[in-house]
């Protein structure tokens, strides 16, 4: 490729300008959300709209948190997302270990069944899941949410972890067996510690899924005290149609854990996306 210095310079400037313009368009909705959350109700529908609010205030955040039970919903979401993540990742890792290291009757059919459920729409099962939750007494309970979230995330987690486990060297495991250790020792002392990056990736995606899941939580939960954040935000919007500042303050509070997670573990977000895709 033979470009002279000038052409290269022009091209780079153009690239940054175009990417910058695109980034502005991408970011404006979110920036506007933050600025609306910082506005008093009288300024929300002001024309022309202001991105820097006059008289910025944290009143919306304080009101959402204190008087609208959002601390409770936040706790519910945290309990559900953390439990679902721990259970799902442990179960998936155990499944993946079985698939990666053992030969047993039914291996292929079970694995294809897991893969198959990756293709079906999650919402497709909501009617029987609802009836099942009713029968098992899991409606209006956080465990009803956890069980379904675990079941829904197991297939993808197992698939990704199996790929990772298969690449681990087997020598250490054989050494453990020779020393008289069992498969439990191998799994907890060797496989899991060696797989921290993969475990981090699937944990993040499971947490993200459980934290943001809306439809099952909307369907399974009727009582206010058991709501999770996404349902609470949507119902809250239904009840205070024009109080956008309050709605967005609540939304931003709900986004804090996700943003923190992304800021600290960015590379796992990216690697998780690309492992599935590039092999696929």
């Amino acid at each position, binding site marked *: 490729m033979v470009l002279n210095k000038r052409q290269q310079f022009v091209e780079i400037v153009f690239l940054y300008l175009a990417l910058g313009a695109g980034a502005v368009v991408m970011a404006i909705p979110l920036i506007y959300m933050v600025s609306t959350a910082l506005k008093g109700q009288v300024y929300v529908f002001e024309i022309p*709209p202001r991105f820097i609010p006059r008289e910025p205030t944290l009143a919306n955040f304080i009101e959402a948190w204190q008087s609208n039970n959002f601390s409770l919903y936040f706790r519910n979401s945290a309990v559900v997302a953390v439990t679902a993540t721990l259970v799902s990742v442990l179960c998936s890792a*155990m499944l993946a270990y079985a698939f990666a290291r053992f030969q047993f009757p039914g291996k292929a059919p079970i694995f294809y069944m897991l893969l198959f459920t990756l293709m079906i729409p999650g919402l497709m099962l909501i009617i029987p*899941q609802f009836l*099942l939750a009713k029968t098992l007494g899991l409606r209006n309970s956080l465990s009803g949410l956890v069980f379904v979230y675990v079941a829904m995330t197991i297939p993808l987690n197992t698939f990704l972890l199996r790929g990772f486990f298969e690449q681990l060297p087997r020598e250490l495991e054989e050494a453990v067996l020779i020393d008289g250790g069992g498969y439990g020792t191998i799994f907890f002392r060797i496989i899991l510690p060696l797989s921290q990056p993969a475990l981090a990736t699937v944990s993040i995606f499971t947490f993200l899924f459980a934290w943001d899941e809306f439809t099952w939580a909307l369907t399974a939960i009727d009582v206010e005290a058991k709501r999770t954040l996404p349902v609470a935000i949507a119902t809250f919007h239904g009840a205070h149609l024009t109080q956008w500042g309050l709605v967005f303050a609540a939304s931003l509070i709900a986004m804090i854990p996700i943003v923190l997670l992304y800021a600290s573990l960015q590379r796992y977000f*990216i690697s998780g996306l690309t492992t599935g895709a590039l092999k696929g």
Partner: protein
Amino acid sequence: MNRALRQQQIRVAYLFMLPGLIFFLTFQIYPLIKAFQISLYRWEIMPGQASQFLGLANYLRAFQDPIFWLAMRNTALYTLVTVPGQMVLAMVVALALNRLVWGRVFFRTVYYLPVITSWVVVSLLFKFLFNSQAGLINFVLKDLLHLTPNYIPWLQNPGTALIAIMTLGIWKGIGWSMVIFLAALQGIPVELHEAAAIDGASRWQRFWYVTLPIMRPTLVFVLVMLTIGGFNVFIPVYLITGGEPMHRTETILTYMYNEAFNFLDFGYGAALSYLLAAIIFVLSFLQIRFLRRPVEF
């Protein structure tokens, strides 16, 4: 391997699978079968009332139901617009980012932010942006750019409401495909491009004859995943229009959900779910079958 060891290994494998399989079979496979059974009945939700077996009547009902076809059309339209929209824009951004030396992580983060924001939050946000009076979009179009003489009642009108929902779908999804494309672009050996350049290939030719063919498996993967996602569109429609006015913005899943949980017609809802799953299955199969050819160097 001796027999006893083999037996032991099988036992160990099943033990390791047990907890995960219990969750998976109870809350995925059983519902999958149960949904099909429900779809064959006029399903009574009240205890004590017997459900009436209808055979395939719920499925036939869908084919004669104009709202089903409307929902089908809207869902297909959403997919046809948002999937290419996301892929083309994501590819443009990924190609541009791939040429950057400085600021790549910053730009990637900005484009990726909508992906990690919850559907509920961004749906409400777009409802606010497309507000018929003082929404930001109307302000930009009328007061700033003078493209329209009046404020547009975006969400009251079925056509424009779908535009708002599709805009949201594209905006939220670009980052996801972009990250995957960028990783694939970085995996392309530089030598290939250099060789093509020496042979006199223009930039466009190199993109068309080198980059795209190598990325083919990635493109097919993204296409299949986005098509599945497009047909599954639910939360933005449910929260922004709720299928209104008069079912005109209904999609398959919002229609299914309303039939099941507002009208308690579980049998019809389950049939709609199965129809959607069948469509998705056939489409994914066709896409993989016809588009995924091995790359040859």
